[in-house]
């Protein structure tokens, strides 16, 4: 009996340890990135162009590139994702075609990001002739985040109680009026949360944009959406692995990582806050 309690104590400690491992991992990761990058962050670093082979100067074009890429991706992915979800939840009747859509969404979510890059290169850059450009990269990323947006929007729509729909329909609303005026307003916060998370994923994604438009170095800002662009994740990758003077560019890399993490984590935080706020507000 005594041996058994000792054994259980050991096992419980091991289980606690695995929880602790997660905390430590994040702490170590953040510690190194903060200590490496915090000294680099300044107004000049955020608003200037890189100079001297990116060893000094700022990262303004990368930040702008990442932000514009995110905006463009969302402009493409958001309507596609939300309307697909509305169709799937509100309109689709169970059947072969609906099953095919479910299967497709599921499989899109499982495709490795590098394969999206390949397809983006073949389809947008070469076949459609968009070239290495902001719009090619945004289209590629849009297809990539589409399943995330569809899945979270579906979940948000399903959470709206059925009797709200039935009430609206019983009062003579058409299907679209019901959806638009009575279902969407309640589902929107949930959709928003999922979309912000998808967007933060797109912001940090590197593999697809390597092949579809990210540039190693540019002396000017992209003049249109058909121009190449610099992006934070791609610059982090190239500076860390391919720079001729790795030691000298390291502070810039740390600074860029810190900025990227701030962008991504802020969006995650906003998503979590939105979710918690509306979870409390709507209780069915």
């Amino acid at each position, binding site marked *: 009996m005594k041996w*058994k309690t000792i*054994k259980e104590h050991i*096992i419980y400690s*091991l*289980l*606690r*340890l*695995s*929880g602790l*491992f*997660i*905390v430590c*991992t*994040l702490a170590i*990761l953040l510690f*190194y990135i903060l200590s490496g990058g915090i000294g680099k962050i300044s107004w000049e670093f955020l608003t200037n162009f890189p100079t001297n082979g990116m060893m000094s100067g700022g990262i303004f074009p990368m930040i702008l590139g990442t932000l514009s890429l995110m905006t463009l991706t969302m402009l493409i992915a958001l*309507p*596609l994702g939300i*309307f*697909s979800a509305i*169709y*799937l939840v509100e*309109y*689709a009747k169970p059947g072969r075609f609906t099953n095919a*859509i479910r299967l*497709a969404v599921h499989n*899109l979510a*499982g*495709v*490795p990001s*590098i*394969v999206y*890059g*390949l*397809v983006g290169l*073949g389809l947008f850059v*070469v*076949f459609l002739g968009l070239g290495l450009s902001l719009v090619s990269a945004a289209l590629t990323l849009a*297809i990539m985040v589409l399943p995330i947006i569809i899945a979270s929007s579906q979940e948000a729509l399903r959470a709206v109680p059925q009797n709200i729909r039935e009430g609206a329909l019983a009062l003579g609303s*058409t*299907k*679209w*009026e019901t959806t638009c005026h009575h279902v969407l307003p309640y589902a929107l916060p949930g959709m928003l949360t999922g979309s912000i*998370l998808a967007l933060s994923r797109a*912001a*940090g*994604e*590197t*593999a697809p944009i390597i092949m579809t438009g990210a540039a190693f170095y540019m002396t000017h800002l992209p003049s249109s959406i058909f121009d190449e662009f610099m992006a934070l*994740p791609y610059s*982090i*990758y190239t500076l860390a*692995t391919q720079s001729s003077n790795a030691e000298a560019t390291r502070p810039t*890399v740390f600074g860029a*990582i810190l900025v*990227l*993490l701030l962008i*991504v*984590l802020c969006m*995650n935080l906003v998503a979590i806050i939105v979710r918690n706020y509306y979870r409390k507000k709507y209780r069915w």
Partner: protein
Amino acid sequence: MKFDLFTLKKYDYKKIRNLKDNVIRKILFGFGATAVIFIIIILVFLLIEGLPFFLEGDGIDFFTGDVWDPSSPNTPRYGILPMVLGTFLVTLGAIVIAVPIGIGCSIYLAEIAHPKIRETLKPIIEILAGIPSVVYGFFALIILSTWIDDLFNSTTKLNALTGSIMLAIMMLPIIISLSEDAIRSVPQEMKEASLALGLSKWDTIRGVVVPAALSGITAAIILGVARAIGETMTVLMATGNAPVISFDMLSSMRTMTATIAIEMGEVPFGSTHYHSLFAVGIVLFAITFIVNFIADRVMKRFREKY
């Protein structure tokens, strides 16, 4: 007359509303089809760009050849085996590290942890899941590799083990959150029945809860594996990228994803080398498709059970 006009108007109005409703229904149907269209486009483009490689006659050497040397001027060789092995070993290493920690942590979160600890751990896991892969890759490249070097005196600083550890950390959030869901969905009555029969809490967890949630946990692990196989930036920056056949976890390796990322930027468009990278993409797509399919099946079985 006035009455007639009124009903006519009302009738028209209703007609217009219904027409509008039908048009919107059709438009939404079009949106619904986008996912299907995209998955078909992905398949078609992989095949269009990848099949020429097989048609040029190197198909058998592609699957059986153990040398990947596409830039050799005289005899370019396109053997995918070193990369398949690289992906396999790095993923296997990640599984060995991530599965015990992941299951342990999910049991802890679902059954043991105080609600307050749980509420703080969950966001931490979400943050880990949200960190971009290039950041993990950089951490592996700059910090983890020196630790590995100090610990094991490896010949190369960037090796399969570095990649495995980093992939394990990236897999953990998926494994933990999905396994925890699985464990929590085990009916309370089952636990209570076990406790009522005099089993200790640990015996209940080990003998009742975990076996009941096993298919859900398995699906979580398989989904984590799918993520690890498809991950590019981390392994690209961590494993050293030498396309050689080796079973030594402390030697440099290269995965399929890394090969595509490294070489795609340098190949002339339309060359055999260009098509060979799409062929690697097809293999990668097929592997992740199968792994995801298996995970889906296992998950479905779990859902049907409860």
